């Protein structure tokens, strides 16, 4: 029902009826057309044509992009922006009942900043305080739209799991786990990696029993019987969806041992890990990750900020790729999110990925990992017109984002941004002056001051 209403709302909102032709750009498609110099034609929010020579439809808006580079919109497989307040329901070891969808804040300025960094889609994850965290979903960075309209329609939802230091911190008296008011939280299980494994296995033990109950009920209903339904358990419901392959598991992890543990726990319980997140030691168990069929979404070169990041290497992305793992590079950070293009560039430096392989790590690969590659992640006919135009080679720090489109609608324009700066500064000064004046009046009214 909810889905129907949402569909209706989206239908009422006209996307972009305009036809746009972006011409003479170096187009890095990440699709079958590879890299070419030419044009991309966009109509009604979709890519309708591309090539060295295209027919320019009558009335189309033509954007001259000579010397510039056009790439698919960047996809961040791990972000925590656009949430209202905390995204970490860490009070319990299993918080699979909570959902990021319920706290989307479309006014978070981080959305606009991400957009200005070429990001058009981001997977918004729950925090990593517990072994099994909350439900997650990808958003499009449609700045200015409502929370509902940010949601990536049709995407398979996810759930966040977390291994290692973060989930065990709350249980460890030396772990520095502190509540908001600085009070030390004691005793929330687990306190070790052993306990993290147990929490996950116990949860799936329960979820499988829950699924058996519901499967039996569904079978009876299918036969036309009228049995009493089992009690709905919102916590187990999300895990049942994992077992039914209707919800992707994104696992925050660092060390090779815990990655392997997670693979075996998933194997034993009959589900797949969709992506390992951070996965800084993924290179040590790349073979096992590839065999399991999981993707890996990592940082390019972050390390040493905590002990489980001590063996991180900037070659992680390249090595895992060479060993057959589907790899993306993510941000987990509102600042890093703004230059994932150059994070991809580091895969060229560290481990010798070519430009297509490197760019794939922030476009088509995360799209595949999130199961949205049928609509986004590359420049191909029929896909959403999520596009980014750079003024230079897009994986070099010398390049900057010029224009960003989502569904064919332009959401960022550097020239307009720069042109508007003076007016915005003036408006701010006006408001400040008004505030100052009001404050001055207020002071004079106080008899004792």
């Amino acid at each position: 029902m909810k889905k129907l209403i949402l569909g209706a709302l989206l239908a009422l909102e006209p996307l972009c009826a305009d036809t746009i032709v972006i011409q003479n750009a170096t187009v890095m498609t990440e699709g079958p057309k590879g890299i070419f110099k030419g044009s991309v034609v966009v109509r009604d929010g979709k890519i309708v044509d591309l090539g060295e020579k295209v027919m320019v439809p009558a009335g189309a808006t033509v954007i001259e992009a000579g010397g510039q580079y056009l790439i698919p919109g960047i996809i961040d497989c791990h972000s925590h922006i656009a949430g209202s307040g905390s995204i970490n329901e860490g009070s319990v070891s299993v918080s699979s009942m909570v959902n990021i969808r319920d706290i989307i804040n479309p006014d978070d300025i981080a959305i606009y900043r991400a957009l200005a960094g070429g990001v058009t889609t981001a997977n918004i994850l729950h925090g990593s305080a517990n072994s099994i965290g909350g439900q997650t979903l990808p958003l499009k960075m449609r700045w200015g739209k409502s929370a509902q309209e940010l949601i990536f329609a049709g995407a398979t939802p996810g759930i966040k799991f977390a291994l290692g230091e973060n989930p065990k911190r709350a249980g460890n008296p030396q772990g520095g786990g502190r509540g908001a008011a600085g009070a030390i939280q004691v005793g929330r299980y687990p306190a070790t990696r052993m306990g993290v494994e147990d929490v996950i296995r116990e949860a799936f033990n329960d979820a499988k029993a829950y699924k058996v109950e519901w499967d039996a009920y569904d079978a009876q209903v299918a036969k036309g019987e009228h049995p009493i339904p089992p009690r709905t358990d919102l916590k187990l419901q999300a895990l049942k969806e994992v077992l039914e392959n209707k919800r992707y598991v994104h696992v925050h992890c660092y060390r090779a041992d815990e990655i392997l543990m997670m693979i075996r726990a998933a194997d034993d319980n009959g589900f797949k890990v969709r992506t390992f997140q951070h996965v800084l030691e993924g290179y040590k168990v790349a073979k096992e990750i590839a065999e399991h069929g999981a993707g890996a979404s990592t940082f390019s070169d972050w390390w040493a900020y905590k002990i489980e990041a001590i063996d991180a290497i900037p070659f992680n992305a390249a090595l895992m790729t060479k060993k057959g793992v589907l790899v993306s590079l993510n941000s987990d950070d509102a600042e890093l999110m703004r230059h994932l293009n150059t994070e991809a560039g580091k895969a060229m430096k560290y481990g010798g990925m070519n430009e297509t392989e490197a760019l794939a790590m922030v476009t088509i690969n995360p799209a595949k990992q999130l199961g949205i590659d049928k609509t986004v992640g590359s420049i191909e006919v029929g896909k959403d017109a999520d596009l980014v135009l750079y003024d230079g080679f897009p994986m070099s720090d010398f390049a900057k984002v010029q224009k960003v489109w989502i569904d064919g609608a332009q959401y960022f324009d550097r020239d307009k941004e720069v042109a508007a700066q003076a007016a915005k500064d003036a408006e701010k000064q006006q408001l400040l002056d008004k505030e100052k004046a009001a404050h001055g009046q207020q002071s004079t009214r106080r008899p004792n001051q």
Partner: protein
Amino acid sequence: MKLLGLLMVSAMAAFAAGEVVLIQNADIYPMNGAPLKGGSLLIQDGKIVDIGAKLTAPKGATVLEGKGLRVYPGWIDSGTELGLEEIGSIRETNDTGEIGDFMPQLKALSAVNPDSEHFGVVRVNGITTAIALPGGGGRGGGGGIIVGQAALLHTDGWTWEEMEINRSAAMVLNFPSAAGRGGRGGMPDFPDMVPNASGADARRAVLDQIAKLNAFFDDARKYKTAKAANLLDFHKDLKFEAMLPVIDGKMPLAVNASRAAAIHDAIAWSEKQNVKIVFLQPREVAKAGPELKAKNIPVILGRVLTLPENEDAEYDEGYTQPFEAYKAGVKFALGTFTNEFVRDLPYQAATAVAYGLPHDEAMKALTINPAQIWGAGDLIGSLEKGKLADLMIVDGDPMDVRTQIRHLFIKGKEITLSNKQIRLYERYMSRQ
């Protein structure tokens, strides 16, 4: 200066029988003038002994063919915790922030761990020199007013003594300001318009801190007088001893101040105290620019890749900071101020170029500018006869992420381009 002289002697001694290397047919970018295409550079006894169109290799010299390659001076990161912090979240591995408000006697250098894995990691990206800051970031505690002496060091050496360029490159001061020490936090837009008690208290606290700071300087001067008078009951005081080069104007104060108001206050204060200053991580550079330029005060800009401080600021506020400093005519260098970002220093600079800074100015901000700002302009920062041979041979623009470093020299010694991370990579690539 005497110290530097001594150091050079010791450096020469260490390389008396050292390597002789001739780099030939390379494009040499000296930073103090136009590039020399297809030129040669001769390294001997740890120093650059000659640069020319076509030099002949002395007997026994190693010849490096540089055709198609470029030679640049090594990068200098002007704000790090290298050697002082290993793992961010582990207190036991942090030696950056000591307890105490006035601690000028503390020296970062002698707490530097030469075997820190960070040195190997940053070296292979061309960082040959760094400022190691005491109290930077306060992750090991910290929060004092004068927090100790920053060291200028090489990123290679068996001991911290061998790594030293200058153990007393600057005295680090967190200048008290209304927005908190170092000018972070607070109410940036309305510092004087918060009509509540805590605002007034905060201002009182700032004035109190400045009074303490002035009193400390007064005491240091009295100490100097007493020492000169050589009185019978004179006792050596390590804190005040450490302050002597500062009050004599020989050692600059590296001042943490972020906002224009704090920068202005700190400049006025430094003039009253007659001390040399350089600013660390100023944020409101455009606003403070004219005054910085007029007073000829250099600044160390923080990370270019940083979020705007306020929600309503331009999205590219951090990216355009170096360009703002350049437009204002302020002399500046760059620092990353967090160990894990040190190796990204050239890429941070490249972002500044994308947002307006001329390419040459970005290069200077990582080489000759910091060398001069930190008082080592005669030793490092450019490729010149007589300078230390801190240089890299690369296959492209050194600020472009695609460029690879082929050879790296620190004090004339070729550095093996390996580290723990590269070894792990090779080891796990070989796993079947």
